[in-house]
């Protein structure tokens, strides 16, 4: 019986063992010995533990001890060492055998080989992990819809990223509905419904999503229906592939195609693709039309093409083809003769392809009719030639300058010649300034700065110092205008006026000498006459006084005679004083011609008169004449003398100025008191405030060549006009001389004075006769 039992136990497909209540193993079957390679002897007691994987042993022993204590069955999964050293997973199970009073009398155990089961589990876990990884990490957006709950069950990161939503948001159909491009919403929903109802197994659609951030996404979506064992729809998997880029590219391509057609139409250029040797007409009707051919009449051969080209242009075409042979680029302009005999200019641009023998096989490109362009070019060339000739003859160059966009100035050839500059490098104000005479540089820079800042027209003359140290005079006139894009552009001319300047200077010098002599002469005569008039009574006074003294010194003193001579002395004193009064009357000149005077116009005439003198003194005159200046009543010529005098004074005051532009600002305006005010502001050396009062005295001068009469006479003229002439030191360098006189709408008390000798200038704006 025991033997029979033993053979049964040995035959059991498991490792069977028994243990004493204290856990000591007292029996193992043959399977155990066979698997572990241990003998019964080696397995009894605690020795069996050698067969357990060391990592699994502690846990096993803990449970085993616990079961021994409690008498509860024990179960554990452990790896067991096979006789060859390999480990396999076993299910370790032990049940207690108890007596009638539930006391454990024996443990009976069996270990099952569960290695294969374990392997299966592991594979399944790995597979699940793999799937999860794919699901999570896939570039494709995936969602799994559970048709039992009717909601999306799962979605992956790619989908969340694609649609800009959280995992939670995408677990509701409402979210998908919201994102679907509104016009497509119902159609998409209908399609999906068919799938949902099991009418379709797969569905592909391009879905257009409008995302919450305002961007849009195109997705190619493949829905797959999964059914359960009973073929009932169970899940839907939807795979979203982002095709936004592709969509955009296609749209762009379509736009390009349209653009190409538009461009062809607009440029009147036709694309051609000509397989030359196939002798097949691959020309479009439009291409044929450029050659004056009826649609479909071109036979596609090289020879026929050659015949269409205007013979004189053929060599140039051949040259272009040779060039194309080397570079592949076709670029040619040539004339074609239409069947009606008319000649047309064509331009061809494109690419040439060659066959194995290097012969041209295919040409791809554009042809455009450029007849009108050629005509315009020809006209431009002709007028440019005219202009160049005119510029050369007149030594005048022209330029264009966009001060706000670029420092570069576009120059005509003549300007390069005048300035003797290399025409390969761009011209800038900085480059020009290297040619400007050092003494004129400040004025030149000032002009450039003004132009940049104000956008006003300008006119000026500068000296150039050429590399060979010769001097050239250049007269520049520039007009500001807005070009078609609203940009400020100066268009102007610069003329070499050296020759003219030289002769002008000679004339000027002679004239200025003459003027100086005349000035000195008249003042000399005036002084002499004053001296003569005053010396007469003075002579009487001194003679009388001598006589008087002698009469008093006589013995006896001639008191009566002395009294008489003293009386005569007094009378002569009065006479001298009368002479002075007469002179003042002479200066005040009350018999002026009073008329209505436009002070601006009078000023412009003075400026015109003094232009040369100011230029020679390198004075920049800026005239700011008020538009709304009222007329004044006065002696026009006298007022002009005053203005001229102020301009000269200002100009003379700046002769020693080299470190700044010699700028005179002449301003007319209506002041706060309603008077008409004219001021001349210089940047000259100025004067000591203490000498201010003496400025207007006769014979006071700060100038080497002056007699000191100008300001005194000027003041008396202005006072005759019921005005004031004054000088104020500037905040910066120099002085402002100004006068203000009442305008016509204020009654002049002296209006009736003086005969009206009409010295009316036809250019004056005498508005009231």
């Amino acid at each position, binding site marked *: 019986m025991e033997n029979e039992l033993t053979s049964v136990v040995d035959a059991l497909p498991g490792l069977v063992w028994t243990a004493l209540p204290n856990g000591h193993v007292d029996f193992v079957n043959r399977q155990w010995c066979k698997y572990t390679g241990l003998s019964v002897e080696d397995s009894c007691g605690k020795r069996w533990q050698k067969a357990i994987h060391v990592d699994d042993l502690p846990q096993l022993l803990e449970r085993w001890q616990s079961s021994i204590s409690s008498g509860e069955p024990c179960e554990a999964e452990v790896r067991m060492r096979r006789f060859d050293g390999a480990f396999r997973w076993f299910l370790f199970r032990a049940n207690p055998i108890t007596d009638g009073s539930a006391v454990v009398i024996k443990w009976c155990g069996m270990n099952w080989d569960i290695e294969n089961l374990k392997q299966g589990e592991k594979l399944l876990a790995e597979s699940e992990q793999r799937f999860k990884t794919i699901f999570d990490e896939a570039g494709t957006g995936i969602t799994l819809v559970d048709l039992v709950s009717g909601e999306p069950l799962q979605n992956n990161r790619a989908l969340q990223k694609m649609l800009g939503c959280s995992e939670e948001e995408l677990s509701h159909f409402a979210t998908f509905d919201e994102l679907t491009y509104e016009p497509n919403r119902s159609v998409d929903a209908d399609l999906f419904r068919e799938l949902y109802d099991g009418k379709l197994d797969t569905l592909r659609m391009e879905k257009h999503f409008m995302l919450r951030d305002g961007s849009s996404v195109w997705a190619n979506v493949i829905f797959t229906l999964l059914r359960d064992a009973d073929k009932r729809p169970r899940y839907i998997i939807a795979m979203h592939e982002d095709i936004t880029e592709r969509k955009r590219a296609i749209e762009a391509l379509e736009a390009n195609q349209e653009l190409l057609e538009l461009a062809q139409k607009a440029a009147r250029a036709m694309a051609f693709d000509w397989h030359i040797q196939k002798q097949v007409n691959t020309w479009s009707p439009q291409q044929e039309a450029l050659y004056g051919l009826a649609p479909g009449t071109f036979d596609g051969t090289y020879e026929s093409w050659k015949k269409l080209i205007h013979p004189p242009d053929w060599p140039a075409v051949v040259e272009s083809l040779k060039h194309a042979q080397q570079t592949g680029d076709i670029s040619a302009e040539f004339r074609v003769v239409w069947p009606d005999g008319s000649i047309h200019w064509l331009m061809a641009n494109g690419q040439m392809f060659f066959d194995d023998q290097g012969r041209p096989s295919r040409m791809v490109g554009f042809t455009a009719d450029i007849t009108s362009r050629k005509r315009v070019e020809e006209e431009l060339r002709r007028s440019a030639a005219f202009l160049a000739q005119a510029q050369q003859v007149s030594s005048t160059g022209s330029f264009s300058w966009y001060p706000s966009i670029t420092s570069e100035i576009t120059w005509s050839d003549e300007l390069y010649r005048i300035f003797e500059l290399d025409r390969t490098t761009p011209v800038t104000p900085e480059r020009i300034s290297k040619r400007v005479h050092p003494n004129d540089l400040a004025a030149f820079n000032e002009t450039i700065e003004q132009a940049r800042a104000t956008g006003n027209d300008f006119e000026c003359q500068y000296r150039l110092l050429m590399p060979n140290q010769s001097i050239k005079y250049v007269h520049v006139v520039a007009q500001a205008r807005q070009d078609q894009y609203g940009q400020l552009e100066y268009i102007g001319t610069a003329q070499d006026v050296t020759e003219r300047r030289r002769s002008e200077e000679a004339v000027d010098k002679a004239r200025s000498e003459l003027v100086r002599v005349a000035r000195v002469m008249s003042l000399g005569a005036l002084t002499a006459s004053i001296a003569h*008039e005053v010396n007469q009574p003075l002579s*009487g*006074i001194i*003679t009388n006084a*001598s006589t008087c003294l002698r009469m008093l010194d*006589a013995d006896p003193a001639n008191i009566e005679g002395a009294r008489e001579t003293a009386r005569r002395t007094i*009378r*002569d004193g009065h006479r001298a004083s009368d002479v002075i009064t007469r002179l003042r009357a002479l200066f005040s000149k009350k018999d002026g011609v009073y008329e209505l005077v436009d002070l601006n116009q009078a000023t412009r005439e003075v400026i015109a008169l003094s232009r040369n003198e100011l230029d020679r003194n390198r004075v920049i005159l800026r005239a700011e004449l008020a538009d709304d200046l009222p007329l004044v009543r006065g002696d026009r010529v006298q007022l002009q003398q005053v203005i001229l005098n102020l301009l000269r004074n200002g100009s003379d005051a700046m002769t020693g100025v080299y470190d700044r532009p010699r700028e005179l600002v002449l301003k007319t305006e209506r002041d706060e008191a309603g008077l008409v005010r004219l001021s001349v502001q210089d940047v000259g050396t100025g004067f000591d405030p203490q000498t201010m009062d003496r400025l207007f005295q006769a014979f006071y001068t700060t100038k080497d060549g002056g007699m000191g009469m100008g300001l005194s006479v000027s003041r008396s003229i202005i006072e005759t006009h019921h005005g004031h002439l004054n000088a104020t030191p500037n905040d910066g360098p120099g002085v402002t001389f100004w006068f203000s006189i009442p305008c016509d709408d204020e009654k002049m008390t002296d209006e009736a004075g003086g005969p009206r000798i009409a010295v009316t200038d036809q250019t004056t704006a005498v508005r009231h006769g």
Partner: protein
Amino acid sequence: MTTRPLISVVDDDESVRESLPDLLKEFGFEAQAFSSAEEFLASDSVNETSCLLLDVAMPGMTGPDLQRELTIRRQEIPIVFITAHRDEGVRPRLIAQGAVDCLFKPFDETDLLEALNNALRVS
């Protein structure tokens, strides 16, 4: 000499005509004044005059004109020119033409006296 020398003053300026004779008389001369060269030539004094105090610039006949006229008439009267035009170039010219001196108005009595003494010495 018991008779005092006669000094004739020819000047268009009234204050000179009034003041100068009084001073000359104080010097101890006889003095007469004429408002123009013509008036002097027409007077009896031409032959009596020991010295002529003659203004250069006058309306009508000028001082130098009168000098020429007297030379032509061989009336050798010493002449002292007086002028209110202070022109230094005039003085040597007039002296070269025979004048004793040329005084610029206003002159002081010392210069006048010296010039007169020179003139009278010449005569």
